[in-house]
């Protein structure tokens, strides 16, 4: 990861940071999707230099950086144009080489709670040979649940709550449906860089981006 550009969100009294993150990341995500290769691998990684998840303070701060191995990839991504509609609320630097002096490296990974009803329903659908919509909406009979009367005998996945995770997140709208969901982002610091590809959100569970 030798080149980067930095995006700073400029919240104002009328528009808060969380709302801006939704709008900005939506645009970035559209761009990442466009740039995925045939194997759905992306060449641009995202870092959040102000990511914070200790105890009560959760947040992404007001900055993110886009990293790539070469300048051309970031030029092709054309961040300023992608964010043109948000120009009053976002500052975008030019493409710069990553500095020599680094603090280290970090993995920014998407975290999905295991009990996300859609994921559970997808698993159920695979195992029972039904499609996802059916699995979500059908009533699933449960085996006898012992003596505890609090346990129901049947339920539907679509009635389950969407749980939350103690990590900073961005609220996004899915590109297919109108559903909103939370993109939880965890940060793991590492000493050595690991190369690899990134998802359509610019995140990875193995590949690092430089920290400085």
């Amino acid at each position, binding site marked *: 990861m030798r080149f980067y550009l930095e995006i700073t969100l*400029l919240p104002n*009294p009328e*528009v808060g940071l969380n709302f801006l993150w939704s709008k900005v990341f939506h645009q970035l995500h559209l761009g990442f999707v466009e740039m995925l290769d045939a194997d759905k691998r992306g060449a641009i990684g995202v870092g959040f230099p102000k990511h914070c998840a200790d105890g009560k303070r959760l947040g992404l701060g007001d900055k993110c950086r886009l990293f790539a191995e070469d300048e051309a990839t970031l030029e092709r991504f054309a961040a300023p144009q992608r964010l043109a*509609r948000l120009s*009053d*609320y976002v500052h975008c630097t030019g493409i710069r080489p990553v500095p020599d002096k680094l603090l280290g490296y970090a993995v920014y990974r998407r975290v999905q709670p295991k009990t996300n009803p859609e994921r559970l329903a997808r698993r159920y659908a695979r195992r029972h040979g039904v499609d996802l919509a059916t699995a979500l909406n059908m009533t699933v009979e449960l085996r006898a649940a012992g003596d505890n009367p609090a*346990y*129901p005998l049947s*339920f539907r996945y679509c009635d389950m709550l969407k749980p939350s995770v103690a990590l900073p997140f961005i609220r996004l709208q899915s590109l297919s449906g109108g559903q909103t969901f939370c993109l939880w982002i965890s940060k793991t610091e590492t000493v050595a860089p690991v190369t690899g590809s990134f998802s359509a959100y610019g995140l990875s569970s193995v590949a690092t981006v430089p920290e400085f």
Partner: protein
Amino acid sequence: MAAKNDATVLAFEKKLVPSDGYLYGTTWNDRSNLKPLALTPKSVRGTISNRLKPALQNDPLKLNAEVEKPNLQTVDACALAEDQDTLKLSFTLKVLGGVDKPSACNGPNFNASYPGVAQAYIEQEGFTELAKRYAVNIANARYLWRNRVGAEKIEVVVDTGDGEQLVFDAKQFSLRDFNAANMDLQKLAGKIADALCGRLPYLLISVEAYALVGKAQEVYPSEELILGNGKGDKSKILYAVNGTAALHSQKIGNAIRTIDTWYPGHDDGAIGIGPIAIEPYGAVTNLGKAFRTPKDKADFYSLFDRFALGEKLSNKDQEHYVMAVLVRGGVFGQSGKE
């Protein structure tokens, strides 16, 4: 200064009087086709706010028992229709003069001094600086609040009642500073200044803002503040007037008076967040923060007590700020202080 501000009852009526802002859906290319936007109730599943115990997380059965506790909520939502790509906001803004006359005041010293001080400000400054800033905030469509974010194009059509429409490309006017120079903007600012100085009996401006936000996009009307427990099962109630989604007049007024770049720390990147609304303590609700504190002697009361009795403030900017608070209006008697 031996004299003291002796007004225990002191109130000023606001000089910028906005109406509510009504929201309509239309298309950028054919604006004659216009429909009021309605609110639609929407069911949402609440998220479990605290973290789940690990045992629960891995056991859908147990989790479901938790889920059985009903947590369904209804919220109001508002969006453009599938065939609409443009949001229209319309409101009126009345501008009045008479800032030299409090609507209530009982201090003899104050009454002897203040009108002269205010008239001197009007004579020297003619409200040109404030009027220009208000005009920029009309042109830049700041009053769209969150509806402004991500709009591809924004056009503001202003009618000041003389038969000539002024049209502004809102994106050409910054939200961060007030340096814009433009003939139409000067015209608008000139009229506002005339009204504030009392050279016009009053000025009624009608504003129509069009924002190209995209088909079926979500729209953000004002949220209602329900006092007490009367929300029923709704967790968010939006504002509508006769079935038309709307922005509160207070919200529009707040955006138009977002002209304070004179607060301590404005130029400091770590503190400043651009212009803030004119408020006695420089309060920004979203941030839960007051930027003008009595500790810094930067709040309205610290400055006004001196200004009203004829003392010179250390610079023109502070006078602009004090006059802008009076244009905002409010109850400023001694009892009005914390």
